[in-house]
């Protein structure tokens, strides 16, 4: 019992915090590029903390070390498809020797991503939070709309890495190498009494775009393709980062 208590104490001290690797996202108004509610043109977003970079393979390896139920040999199929951590060399080894330490983890399901963030006292960003940060990045770095559209289309088309350095918030990725899980990735649109589950039909969702220019099409493509994932989906270009409430941190 004493040993258990000791271990428990060590564990509690060992809980990783958000630490210095997250940035404060200032609150503000967000104008969604796709209107999920016809009447709502602007959403107010409260300030929150966001991981500066996507969760790395190294960080995820630490997570599965302390959470054996999420190792690829143990996690039930209920929570992940057959590709889960497929490119790892073993249960605990992501095989990143040759790669940079910060290589984002991919081949993770939505369930696994959420469990990771939860273990750090955070959560996956909501769609509003994530897309709001993209709008801030574009605004604060003065990214021309067409350039933004080119990046996004390039990524979906040829998986072209985006050569974008954020000089305003200190955010890495998001418009770069990997796409990211969010908490409410599935579209569900409402128009008064009518509810539309946006079940993969682009025509349905596209009518709710605010404007029909390149930049809006690019954002819409992200909304729609993200909505087509299932929660067990794992792919080589889908990772995640975590968000945290600002209150607990300050």
């Amino acid at each position, binding site marked *: 019992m004493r040993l258990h208590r000791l271990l428990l104490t060590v564990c509690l001290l060992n809980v990783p915090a958000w630490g210095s690797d997250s940035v404060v996202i200032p609150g503000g108004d967000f104008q969604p590029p796709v209107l999920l509610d016809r009447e709502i043109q602007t959403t107010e977003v409260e300030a929150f903390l966001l991981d500066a970079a996507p969760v790395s393979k190294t960080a995820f390896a630490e997570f599965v070390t302390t959470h054996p139920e999420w190792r690829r040999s143990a996690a*039930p199929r*209920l929570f992940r498809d057959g590709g889960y951590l497929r490119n790892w060399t073993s249960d605990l080894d992501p095989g990143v020797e040759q790669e940079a330490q910060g290589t984002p983890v991919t081949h993770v399901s939505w*369930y696994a991503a959420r469990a990771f963030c939860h273990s750090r006292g955070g959560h996956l960003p909501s769609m509003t939070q994530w897309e709001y940060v993209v709008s801030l990045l574009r605004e604060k770095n003065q990214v021309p709309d067409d350039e933004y559209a080119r990046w996004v289309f390039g990524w979906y088309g040829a998986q072209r890495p985006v050569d974008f350095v954020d000089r305003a918030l200190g955010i890495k990725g998001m418009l770069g190498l990997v796409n990211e899980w969010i908490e409410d990735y599935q579209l*569900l649109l409402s128009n008064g009494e009518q509810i539309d589950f946006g079940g993969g039909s682009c025509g349905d969702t596209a009518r709710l775009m605010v404007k029909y220019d390149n930049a809006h099409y690019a954002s819409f493509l992200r909304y729609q393709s993200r909505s087509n994932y299932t929660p067990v989906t794992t792919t080589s270009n889908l990772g995640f980062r975590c968000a945290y409430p600002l209150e607990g941190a300050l």
Partner: protein
Amino acid sequence: MKIKSKVFGLTATALGLAFSAQAVLAECDHHKDHHDVHLTEHHAHTPVAMVEPLSDESLHHLPAVWRDHRNEPLTLSDLSGQAVIITMVYVGCQTACPVLVEDVKRLYYGLNEAEQANTRVLVVSFDAKGDTPEVLNTFAQNLGGDLPGWHFVTGAEGDIRTFSSLLGIRYRQNPSGGFDHSNVIAVLDRQGEIRGRQEGLAQAPDRLLGALRGALN
């Protein structure tokens, strides 16, 4: 049923011990044998000897602890060995939700008494904030759903989203405070795997009744 209630009596005392051990296992154990760790974690609160390992697709893997309209805790693995009828609603919902509960009742009353005795009903609320056990209790009573083996439950927001995702139910809180959601009734077999799933309201119960009978036999 008798055995079940005895086990529940033990649960309260075992829970405290199980919890600290569980935390250590979950956080620190670098055990090679993941499978044992896994089972221990998810079944710590039901000290029934688990002979069969959980199947890969069993919803009993879900560790969430719910609270039902009788203010009793409930975990999906508590329903092991029984068929389960599931739907998701919220109390503030005027139109679809009472119909969904009616559909579930029709399904349940389509079973004979012996089958009913081996079937549980789980109605999970979308509204973590508004639908307290007390609110759910009134709702259950008003709809004639406060029956033995029926549980109208609430839980943590994240657990509600996990649960809905496992059943392929989409929902979103709308600006007026209500929830837009898909209307789904699902049937779990005794091992916790989904045996039947139906979308839409007021459908003929035959198909799900068949799934339920298949799950029971």
